[in-house]
């Protein structure tokens, strides 16, 4: 084992001269022009001319955290219904108009915000913006379509229960965050969605789909001035301020103290899904880069500590990772893996040991340097496609972060020190105060769970 490690380092050093001249942080964004319409809509046009395509992304502050109490999933349902009838066009006519020119439009609702995403041949920019303008500004919410979509969402929520991994991730967040607006799944629950009506959807739309605070990015093979003229023509008439809502309460208060163990009992499972984690910090944290780098050491890539110990050394799983999810009002941290039922406890213990270690022992300069190079070397791949660029523009702007974040990314990664890493690990990667959630066959594994605290067992068919 020792020898192997030595060889790896030696081989790495042999290639150092090749990379010494590499400029980290040399990432350049294509030219981008920013405009603001009178109604408050922020518009960014970026000329990226490699392929004859254009991506249009509109961000609206209509995420599931804005769901009305008791109507969990209303943001998601409203988003799905935008394309199901607008400006007098039926759902079929809208789909036909998009698809006959090879276009794609989808609405994707997250916890903080929703995005309406379009992708077209660049020559069809005006037609694409016309359709997107109609579905965002003038949705009709036909009653039949509302009812059908409610049925589909309820069925999809039921169907997700067949997937142990999806169930584990949904229920982990729900159990961790309790009654916080981030806690419920974005698509809601079977009873909450089942009780929705056209009136509730219309009300949510009128309160949340407004230009104030919305962000539109157009990225692709287009001329900025011409593209802006079309955007202005289609979106100038959009009116409205967001209705007053209570600000999303800070998540920090939801942090688990002590350990809790939740088991979703799936009696036919031969493999156990494992999630371990706790509440963490918001997207605007000053520790964004130390957390990024430290997490990558623990659970990013094929050489992370979790991957090495769980997959490579022990063959316990096909995947083992960790990650932070930073939202506007807080975030969460989690370890993600799975293993055959027989090795469940061994895998939990190995994972916890690695979290403990990254808190207790300072990361070596060598390991930190390797991890930083991994992150910065791959970063250019995150800005290759029009859709990647549009996503950076809208997300950063939503969080109030300037776009030069992208160009400074690699330099900021390089600045992280071993002391920074240990400090944020101690603050944000918990081992004794945490939630462990399992989707497994409880009878088969319960003898292994001693010492992890009393399990709260939920039968799979009780999960809504």
């Amino acid at each position: 084992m020792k020898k192997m490690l030595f060889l790896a380092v030696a081989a790495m050093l042999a290639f150092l001269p090749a990379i010494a001249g590499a400029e980290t942080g040399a990432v350049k964004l294509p030219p981008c022009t920013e405009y603001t319409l009178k109604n408050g809509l922020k518009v960014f046009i970026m000329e990226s001319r490699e392929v004859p395509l254009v991506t249009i992304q509109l961000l609206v502050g209509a995420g599931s955290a804005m769901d009305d109490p008791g109507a969990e999933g209303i943001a998601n349902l409203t988003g799905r219904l935008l394309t199901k009838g607008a400006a007098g066009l039926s759902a079929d006519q809208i789909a036909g108009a998009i698809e006959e020119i090879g276009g794609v439009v989808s609405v994707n609702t997250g916890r903080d915000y929703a995005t309406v995403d379009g992708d077209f041949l660049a020559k069809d920019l005006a037609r694409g913006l016309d359709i997107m303008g109609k579905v965002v500004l003038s949705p009709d919410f036909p009653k039949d379509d509302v009812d059908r979509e409610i049925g589909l969402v309820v069925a999809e929520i039921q169907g997700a229960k067949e997937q142990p991994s999806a169930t584990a991730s949904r229920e982990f967040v729900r159990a961790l965050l309790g009654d916080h607006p981030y806690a419920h799944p974005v698509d809601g629950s079977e009873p909450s969605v089942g009780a929705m009506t056209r009136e509730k959807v219309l009300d949510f739309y009128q309160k949340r789909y407004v230009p104030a605070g919305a962000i539109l990015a157009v990225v692709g093979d287009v001329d900025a001035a011409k593209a802006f003229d079309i955007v202005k023509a289609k979106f100038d008439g959009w009116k409205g301020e967001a209705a007053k809502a209570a600000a999303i309460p800070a998540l920090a208060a939801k942090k688990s103290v002590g350990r809790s163990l939740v088991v979703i009992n799936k009696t036919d499972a031969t493999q156990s899904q494992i999630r371990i984690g706790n509440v963490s910090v918001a997207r605007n944290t000053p520790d964004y880069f130390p957390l990024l780098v430290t997490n990558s050491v623990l659970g990013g890539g094929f050489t992370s500590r979790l991957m090495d110990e769980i997959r490579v050394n022990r063959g316990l799983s096909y995947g083992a990772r960790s990650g932070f999810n930073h939202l506007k009002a807080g975030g969460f941290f989690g370890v993600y893996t799975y293993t055959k039922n027989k090795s469940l406890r061994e895998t939990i213990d190995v994972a916890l040991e690695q979290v403990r270690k990254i808190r207790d022992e300072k990361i070596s300069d060598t390991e930190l340097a390797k991890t930083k190079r991994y992150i910065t070397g791959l970063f250019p791949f995150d800005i290759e496609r029009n859709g990647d660029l549009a996503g950076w523009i809208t997300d950063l702007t939503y969080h109030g972060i300037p776009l030069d974040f992208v160009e400074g990314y690699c330099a900021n990664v390089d600045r992280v020190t071993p002391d920074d890493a240990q400090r944020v690990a101690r603050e944000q990667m918990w081992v004794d105060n945490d939630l462990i959630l399992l989707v497994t066959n409880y009878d088969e594994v319960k003898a292994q769970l001693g010492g992890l605290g009393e399990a709260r067992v939920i039968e799979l068919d009780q999960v809504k």
Partner: protein
Amino acid sequence: MHVLKSRAARGVVALGLFVLVSVPLAHASAPSAAETKAAPAKLDATVETLKNGLKVILMEDHSVPVVSRWTFYRVGSENERPGITGISHFIEHMMFNGAAKYGPKEFDRILESNGGYSNAFTSEDMTAYYEDFASDVLELCIDLDSDRMKSLALDPKFVVSEMGVVKEERRLSVDNSVEGAMYEELGALAYKAHPYGWPVIGWMSDLEKITREDAVNYWKTYYAPNNAILIIVGDFETKKALALVHKYYDSVPSQAPPERVRTVEPEQPGERRAEVHKPAEMPQILVGYHIPEVTSNDIYALDILQYVLSEGESSRLYKKLVRDLGIAVYAGANASWNIAPALFIFDVKARPDKTAAECETAVYGILADIAANGITPAELAKAQNQVSANFYRSMQTVNGKARKIGTYEIYFGDFNEILKVRDRYRAVTADDVKRVANIYFAPKNRSVVTLVPEA
């Protein structure tokens, strides 16, 4: 938005039997009727075959300072036999576990510490490896890949632990997955003779028994430069890259060419049906019809038909099953691209209060309508425009370009087919689509797997 993103792990493509590389249209190209840019006659790439038989394809692309390097091997589950099913995919995993120069764990350690990412996939017809990395580490990646092509270690300790990893992959993607279990059943049902009938990931009992010796023999037979294609796309100078390729790959010895699969699936004499009983929330069906191999001219009409049937919400399946009848949550279709004749598969998830039989009847109704009346000119034009736009979408990244070049080499023996295929899609008529619907969607040509949900 999921809390913990499961990034694709290595070999993740071996999920079900057919979900592998057979996403034909994402890899294909066709012109739009309104296409204004003239298609070039050839892709601007440099091609050279080394003395040992390794075909090398280099294409410069300086849009971002990155490179994607791929090695495609002409080996997949079709080359296996009962007793060693899954060994192609297992070797794919072992290719990351050490060779003569770079020992166990070093491939990933060295690559990642130099800012690179690697992954690989296995299908019925091919096994492909890639690294994505910053332009300045090309030589390192060439060194790493040539080392394992020349001298894979298959270290006994890692053979054992990696098989554990593969079994977990199987538990994840098949044994604990309704979808995966159904696709596996469909393969076993539709093929009586051809090796496409067993799963790429392999039967669990074979994964228990495969030995190091099996792996060594299999690797020696198929992992030779004369059975491989090397592709590099991105920000590099062709002359320098070619010199590096010679420096590292010239010394890899060639091997006797492996035997190709001889068995041909006989014509199916009648409908075949199977059930999968599993705890599940809703009924589901898979229906597979035998269609010809990728080099058949009928593939293009079948692909157009796939678009008309299932691409987007204006497609026939979505409109009929999801919207008009309200009996399904999801209805998809996929025409496989494979070296040997494979399947055109319909995949329908019923609403929880509806039945599999209702969904099956609705699918057959749509197919009968197309067989009798064909598709409309508007449907044909729409499908051709979608194919064209998807072609550009798949060419946005250096990785996407290299992947497309490699798959076309495997399927057609020449990546320049990428452009010829455009003309073939353009040439498809509504009559062609009607004709192929009549030939291939006959009831006796189909295999049906029904999910019977259990509490």
